[in-house]
Protein backbone atom coordinates (compact mmCIF):
# COMPACT_ATOMS: atom_id res chain seq x y z
CA UNK A 1 0.00 0.00 0.00
CA UNK A 2 1.46 3.32 -1.00
CA UNK A 3 -0.59 5.33 1.49
CA UNK A 4 0.34 5.75 5.16
CA UNK A 5 2.65 3.10 6.52
CA UNK A 6 1.12 3.58 9.96
CA UNK A 7 -2.60 4.21 9.60
CA UNK A 8 -4.88 4.26 12.61
CA UNK A 9 -8.66 4.18 12.84
CA UNK A 10 -8.60 7.96 12.50
CA UNK A 11 -6.90 8.24 9.11
CA UNK A 12 -7.70 4.79 7.76
CA UNK A 13 -9.85 6.04 4.89
CA UNK A 14 -6.84 7.37 2.98
CA UNK A 15 -5.26 3.94 3.13
CA UNK A 16 -8.42 2.22 1.91
CA UNK A 17 -9.44 4.71 -0.77
CA UNK A 18 -8.03 2.46 -3.50
CA UNK A 19 -10.93 0.09 -2.82
CA UNK A 20 -13.25 2.61 -4.50
CA UNK A 21 -16.99 2.85 -3.90
CA UNK A 22 -17.23 0.53 -0.86
CA UNK A 23 -14.40 2.41 0.86
CA UNK A 24 -16.06 5.75 0.15
CA UNK A 25 -19.28 4.43 1.65
CA UNK A 26 -17.50 3.18 4.76
CA UNK A 27 -15.81 6.58 5.09
CA UNK A 28 -19.17 8.35 4.94
CA UNK A 29 -20.55 6.01 7.60
CA UNK A 30 -17.53 6.77 9.79
CA UNK A 31 -18.00 10.51 9.42
CA UNK A 32 -21.69 10.23 10.26
CA UNK A 33 -20.94 8.60 13.61
CA UNK A 34 -19.28 11.76 14.94
CA UNK A 35 -22.29 13.98 14.35
CA UNK A 36 -25.14 11.61 15.24
CA UNK A 37 -27.33 12.77 18.13
CA UNK A 38 -27.06 9.74 20.41
CA UNK A 39 -23.46 9.76 21.68
CA UNK A 40 -21.31 12.90 21.86
CA UNK A 41 -18.08 13.01 19.88
CA UNK A 42 -16.15 13.17 23.14
CA UNK A 43 -17.83 10.08 24.53
CA UNK A 44 -17.31 8.27 21.23
CA UNK A 45 -13.63 9.15 21.45
CA UNK A 46 -13.52 7.69 24.96
CA UNK A 47 -15.05 4.53 23.50
CA UNK A 48 -12.32 4.48 20.82
CA UNK A 49 -9.68 4.83 23.52
CA UNK A 50 -11.29 2.02 25.51
CA UNK A 51 -11.08 -0.32 22.52
CA UNK A 52 -7.53 0.85 21.73
CA UNK A 53 -6.53 0.06 25.29
CA UNK A 54 -7.98 -3.43 25.01
CA UNK A 55 -6.01 -3.92 21.78
CA UNK A 56 -2.89 -2.52 23.51
CA UNK A 57 -2.44 -0.35 20.46
CA UNK A 58 0.02 2.45 21.15
CA UNK A 59 -0.35 4.01 17.69
CA UNK A 60 -4.10 4.16 18.13
CA UNK A 61 -3.82 5.65 21.60
CA UNK A 62 -1.53 8.37 20.29
CA UNK A 63 -3.63 9.36 17.29
CA UNK A 64 -5.18 12.84 17.53
CA UNK A 65 -8.85 12.94 16.63
CA UNK A 66 -9.86 15.80 14.31
CA UNK A 67 -13.50 15.40 15.27
CA UNK A 68 -12.72 16.95 18.67
CA UNK A 69 -11.48 20.27 19.93
CA UNK A 70 -7.92 20.32 21.23
CA UNK A 71 -7.76 19.20 24.84
CA UNK A 72 -10.92 17.13 24.58
CA UNK A 73 -11.33 14.81 26.36
CA UNK A 74 -9.53 16.32 29.32
CA UNK A 75 -6.44 14.68 30.73
CA UNK A 76 -8.14 13.26 33.82
CA UNK A 77 -10.97 11.65 31.87
CA UNK A 78 -8.58 10.28 29.28
CA UNK A 79 -6.30 8.87 31.98
CA UNK A 80 -9.24 7.18 33.70
CA UNK A 81 -10.25 5.48 30.47
CA UNK A 82 -6.71 4.39 29.66
CA UNK A 83 -6.31 3.11 33.20
CA UNK A 84 -9.58 1.19 33.11
CA UNK A 85 -10.80 2.98 36.25
CA UNK A 86 -13.80 4.95 34.99
CA UNK A 87 -16.05 3.09 37.43
CA UNK A 88 -14.20 4.55 40.42
CA UNK A 89 -13.32 7.98 39.06
CA UNK A 90 -15.29 11.17 39.59
CA UNK A 91 -16.14 13.29 36.60
CA UNK A 92 -18.21 10.83 34.59
CA UNK A 93 -21.98 10.93 34.39
CA UNK A 94 -24.07 7.82 34.86
CA UNK A 95 -24.75 7.68 31.15
CA UNK A 96 -21.05 7.97 30.34
CA UNK A 97 -20.20 5.19 32.78
CA UNK A 98 -22.88 2.99 31.23
CA UNK A 99 -21.62 3.58 27.69
CA UNK A 100 -17.98 3.00 28.59
CA UNK A 101 -18.80 -0.16 30.52
CA UNK A 102 -20.71 -1.38 27.46
CA UNK A 103 -17.75 -0.53 25.23
CA UNK A 104 -15.45 -2.52 27.49
CA UNK A 105 -17.74 -5.56 27.39
CA UNK A 106 -18.21 -5.24 23.63
CA UNK A 107 -14.47 -5.11 23.08
CA UNK A 108 -13.86 -8.19 25.18
CA UNK A 109 -16.68 -10.33 23.74
CA UNK A 110 -19.74 -8.99 21.95
CA UNK A 111 -21.57 -12.25 22.67
CA UNK A 112 -21.26 -11.92 26.43
CA UNK A 113 -22.46 -8.41 27.18
CA UNK A 114 -24.44 -8.65 30.44
CA UNK A 115 -28.10 -7.71 30.23
CA UNK A 116 -27.71 -5.18 33.02
CA UNK A 117 -24.93 -3.44 31.09
CA UNK A 118 -27.11 -3.17 27.99
CA UNK A 119 -30.12 -2.14 30.08
CA UNK A 120 -28.13 0.71 31.63
CA UNK A 121 -27.27 2.06 28.17
CA UNK A 122 -30.83 1.68 27.00
CA UNK A 123 -32.09 3.54 30.07
CA UNK A 124 -29.77 6.43 29.23
CA UNK A 125 -29.82 6.53 25.43
CA UNK A 126 -33.03 4.74 24.52
CA UNK A 127 -33.40 1.84 22.12
CA UNK A 128 -32.13 3.79 19.11
CA UNK A 129 -29.17 5.02 21.11
CA UNK A 130 -28.25 1.48 22.11
CA UNK A 131 -28.37 0.31 18.48
CA UNK A 132 -26.31 3.33 17.42
CA UNK A 133 -23.70 2.63 20.10
CA UNK A 134 -23.42 -0.99 18.98
CA UNK A 135 -22.97 0.10 15.35
CA UNK A 136 -20.39 2.71 16.32
CA UNK A 137 -18.38 0.29 18.44
CA UNK A 138 -18.33 -2.16 15.55
CA UNK A 139 -16.99 0.51 13.20
CA UNK A 140 -14.42 1.69 15.72
CA UNK A 141 -13.18 -1.80 16.52
CA UNK A 142 -13.12 -2.82 12.87
CA UNK A 143 -11.08 0.21 11.92
CA UNK A 144 -8.60 -0.45 14.73
CA UNK A 145 -8.25 -4.05 13.53
CA UNK A 146 -7.80 -3.07 9.89
CA UNK A 147 -5.27 -0.38 10.74
CA UNK A 148 -3.21 -2.91 12.70
CA UNK A 149 -3.23 -5.31 9.76
CA UNK A 150 -2.30 -2.55 7.31
CA UNK A 151 0.61 -1.53 9.51
CA UNK A 152 1.85 -5.13 9.42
CA UNK A 153 1.47 -5.18 5.64
CA UNK A 154 3.28 -1.87 5.39
CA UNK A 155 6.18 -3.14 7.47
CA UNK A 156 6.37 -6.23 5.30
CA UNK A 157 6.38 -4.20 2.09
CA UNK A 158 9.12 -2.00 3.50
CA UNK A 159 11.13 -5.02 4.63
CA UNK A 160 10.83 -4.00 8.26
CA UNK A 161 9.91 -6.71 10.74
CA UNK A 162 8.90 -5.95 14.31
Amino acid at each position, binding site marked *: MSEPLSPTSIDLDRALAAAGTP*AASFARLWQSLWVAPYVSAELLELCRLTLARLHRDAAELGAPNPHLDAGTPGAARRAAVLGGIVHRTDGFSGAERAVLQFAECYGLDAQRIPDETADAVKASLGEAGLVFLIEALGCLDGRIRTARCLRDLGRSAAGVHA
Partner: protein
Amino acid sequence: MSTARATAPSGTTGNPIRDSALARVPETLEEIIALNSAVWTRSLVSASLLEVLRLRNARTVNCVFCKAVRYEVAREDGLTEERASMVDANYEGSALSPREKLAVALADAYLGFPAGMSPELAARLQREFTPEQLASMFVALMTFNFTSRTAVSIGGMPEGPLPVTVLPRAATSG
Protein backbone atom coordinates in the same frame (compact mmCIF):
# COMPACT_ATOMS: atom_id res chain seq x y z
CA MET B 1 -33.54 -17.88 22.29
CA SER B 2 -32.34 -14.83 24.20
CA THR B 3 -34.45 -11.70 24.38
CA ALA B 4 -33.61 -9.06 21.80
CA ARG B 5 -32.33 -5.80 23.28
CA ALA B 6 -33.78 -3.84 20.38
CA THR B 7 -36.46 -4.67 17.88
CA ALA B 8 -37.13 -3.78 14.27
CA PRO B 9 -39.80 -1.20 13.55
CA SER B 10 -43.01 -2.72 12.23
CA GLY B 11 -43.41 -3.45 8.56
CA THR B 12 -41.26 -5.38 6.12
CA THR B 13 -39.54 -4.18 2.98
CA GLY B 14 -37.70 -7.34 1.93
CA ASN B 15 -34.32 -5.78 2.65
CA PRO B 16 -32.77 -7.68 5.58
CA ILE B 17 -31.00 -4.60 6.93
CA ARG B 18 -33.97 -2.26 6.58
CA ASP B 19 -36.16 -4.87 8.28
CA SER B 20 -33.82 -5.23 11.27
CA ALA B 21 -33.28 -3.24 14.46
CA LEU B 22 -30.76 -1.15 12.51
CA ALA B 23 -33.77 0.71 11.14
CA ARG B 24 -34.04 2.32 14.59
CA VAL B 25 -31.15 4.59 13.60
CA PRO B 26 -32.11 6.60 10.52
CA GLU B 27 -28.84 8.57 10.68
CA THR B 28 -26.85 5.47 9.67
CA LEU B 29 -29.38 3.12 8.06
CA GLU B 30 -29.16 4.25 4.44
CA GLU B 31 -25.37 4.32 4.44
CA ILE B 32 -25.18 0.82 5.95
CA ILE B 33 -27.50 -0.44 3.22
CA ALA B 34 -25.44 1.37 0.58
CA LEU B 35 -22.24 -0.04 2.06
CA ASN B 36 -23.50 -3.62 2.02
CA SER B 37 -24.65 -3.16 -1.56
CA ALA B 38 -21.33 -1.60 -2.60
CA VAL B 39 -19.37 -4.44 -1.03
CA TRP B 40 -21.30 -7.04 -3.03
CA THR B 41 -21.47 -5.15 -6.31
CA ARG B 42 -18.34 -2.96 -6.45
CA SER B 43 -15.61 -4.88 -4.63
CA LEU B 44 -12.35 -5.61 -6.43
CA VAL B 45 -12.35 -9.34 -5.64
CA SER B 46 -14.77 -12.06 -6.67
CA ALA B 47 -18.09 -12.72 -4.95
CA SER B 48 -16.90 -16.19 -3.95
CA LEU B 49 -13.88 -14.70 -2.22
CA LEU B 50 -16.14 -12.20 -0.43
CA GLU B 51 -18.33 -15.09 0.72
CA VAL B 52 -15.29 -16.90 2.10
CA LEU B 53 -14.45 -13.80 4.14
CA ARG B 54 -18.05 -13.39 5.27
CA LEU B 55 -18.46 -17.03 6.32
CA ARG B 56 -15.17 -17.08 8.20
CA ASN B 57 -16.27 -13.97 10.07
CA ALA B 58 -19.75 -15.37 10.72
CA ARG B 59 -18.36 -18.60 12.17
CA THR B 60 -15.80 -16.79 14.31
CA VAL B 61 -18.26 -14.23 15.66
CA ASN B 62 -20.81 -17.05 15.99
CA CYS B 63 -23.66 -15.10 14.47
CA VAL B 64 -26.39 -17.71 13.99
CA PHE B 65 -28.16 -15.65 11.34
CA CYS B 66 -25.00 -14.84 9.37
CA LYS B 67 -23.87 -18.47 9.46
CA ALA B 68 -27.14 -19.60 7.89
CA VAL B 69 -27.11 -17.10 5.05
CA ARG B 70 -25.62 -17.74 1.62
CA TYR B 71 -25.41 -15.07 -1.07
CA GLU B 72 -26.74 -16.19 -4.43
CA VAL B 73 -24.17 -14.06 -6.20
CA ALA B 74 -21.40 -16.07 -4.53
CA ARG B 75 -23.01 -19.39 -5.39
CA GLU B 76 -23.21 -18.29 -9.00
CA ASP B 77 -19.53 -17.47 -8.75
CA GLY B 78 -18.73 -21.06 -7.73
CA LEU B 79 -18.89 -21.15 -3.95
CA THR B 80 -21.20 -24.15 -3.71
CA GLU B 81 -22.50 -25.38 -0.36
CA GLU B 82 -19.83 -28.08 -0.43
CA ARG B 83 -17.12 -25.46 -0.83
CA ALA B 84 -18.72 -23.14 1.73
CA SER B 85 -18.51 -25.97 4.28
CA MET B 86 -14.73 -26.03 3.81
CA VAL B 87 -14.39 -22.61 5.46
CA ASP B 88 -13.87 -24.30 8.81
CA ALA B 89 -11.07 -25.17 11.20
CA ASN B 90 -9.52 -27.61 8.72
CA TYR B 91 -9.58 -25.27 5.75
CA GLU B 92 -5.84 -25.54 5.09
CA GLY B 93 -6.16 -29.17 4.02
CA SER B 94 -9.36 -28.60 2.05
CA ALA B 95 -9.99 -28.23 -1.66
CA LEU B 96 -10.34 -24.47 -1.36
CA SER B 97 -8.12 -22.63 -3.83
CA PRO B 98 -4.87 -21.02 -2.66
CA ARG B 99 -6.49 -17.57 -2.95
CA GLU B 100 -9.48 -18.72 -0.91
CA LYS B 101 -7.18 -20.15 1.76
CA LEU B 102 -5.27 -16.88 1.89
CA ALA B 103 -8.57 -15.04 2.27
CA VAL B 104 -9.38 -17.22 5.30
CA ALA B 105 -5.95 -16.44 6.75
CA LEU B 106 -6.54 -12.73 6.16
CA ALA B 107 -9.87 -12.95 7.96
CA ASP B 108 -8.22 -14.76 10.86
CA ALA B 109 -5.56 -12.05 11.10
CA TYR B 110 -8.27 -9.40 11.22
CA LEU B 111 -10.41 -11.34 13.69
CA GLY B 112 -7.58 -12.16 16.10
CA PHE B 113 -7.26 -10.39 19.40
CA PRO B 114 -5.32 -8.30 19.04
CA ALA B 115 -5.56 -8.24 15.28
CA GLY B 116 -2.40 -8.54 13.24
CA MET B 117 -0.41 -10.80 10.96
CA SER B 118 2.99 -12.39 10.72
CA PRO B 119 5.57 -11.08 8.23
CA GLU B 120 5.22 -14.38 6.39
CA LEU B 121 1.47 -14.01 5.93
CA ALA B 122 1.86 -10.36 4.97
CA ALA B 123 4.35 -11.30 2.27
CA ARG B 124 2.12 -14.08 0.91
CA LEU B 125 -0.87 -11.74 0.76
CA GLN B 126 1.16 -9.11 -1.06
CA ARG B 127 2.35 -11.66 -3.61
CA GLU B 128 -1.18 -12.89 -4.32
CA PHE B 129 -3.28 -9.71 -4.15
CA THR B 130 -2.86 -6.16 -5.40
CA PRO B 131 -2.97 -3.32 -2.84
CA GLU B 132 -6.37 -2.37 -4.22
CA GLN B 133 -7.71 -5.90 -3.72
CA LEU B 134 -6.34 -6.04 -0.17
CA ALA B 135 -8.02 -2.71 0.61
CA SER B 136 -11.24 -4.04 -0.88
CA MET B 137 -11.12 -7.16 1.27
CA PHE B 138 -10.53 -5.13 4.41
CA VAL B 139 -13.57 -2.95 3.68
CA ALA B 140 -15.62 -6.11 3.15
CA LEU B 141 -14.29 -7.65 6.37
CA MET B 142 -15.10 -4.53 8.38
CA THR B 143 -18.60 -4.50 6.92
CA PHE B 144 -19.27 -8.17 7.61
CA ASN B 145 -17.71 -7.98 11.07
CA PHE B 146 -19.50 -4.90 12.35
CA THR B 147 -22.89 -6.04 11.07
CA SER B 148 -22.54 -9.54 12.54
CA ARG B 149 -21.30 -8.23 15.87
CA THR B 150 -24.20 -5.80 15.84
CA ALA B 151 -26.55 -8.76 15.44
CA VAL B 152 -25.03 -10.75 18.31
CA SER B 153 -24.90 -7.68 20.57
CA ILE B 154 -28.55 -6.90 19.98
CA GLY B 155 -29.37 -10.52 20.76
CA GLY B 156 -32.56 -12.44 20.21
CA MET B 157 -30.81 -15.21 18.33
CA PRO B 158 -31.84 -18.85 18.40
CA GLU B 159 -29.49 -21.17 20.26
CA GLY B 160 -29.11 -23.75 17.53
CA PRO B 161 -28.27 -23.53 13.85
CA LEU B 162 -30.81 -22.27 11.34
CA PRO B 163 -31.43 -23.85 7.95
CA VAL B 164 -29.39 -22.40 5.11
CA THR B 165 -31.11 -19.48 3.41
CA VAL B 166 -29.99 -18.17 0.04
CA LEU B 167 -30.25 -14.40 -0.30
CA PRO B 168 -31.17 -13.50 -3.86
CA ARG B 169 -29.10 -11.12 -5.93
CA ALA B 170 -31.75 -8.44 -5.33
CA ALA B 171 -30.85 -8.41 -1.62
CA THR B 172 -27.47 -6.94 -2.50
CA SER B 173 -28.91 -4.07 -4.50
CA GLY B 174 -29.92 -1.89 -1.57
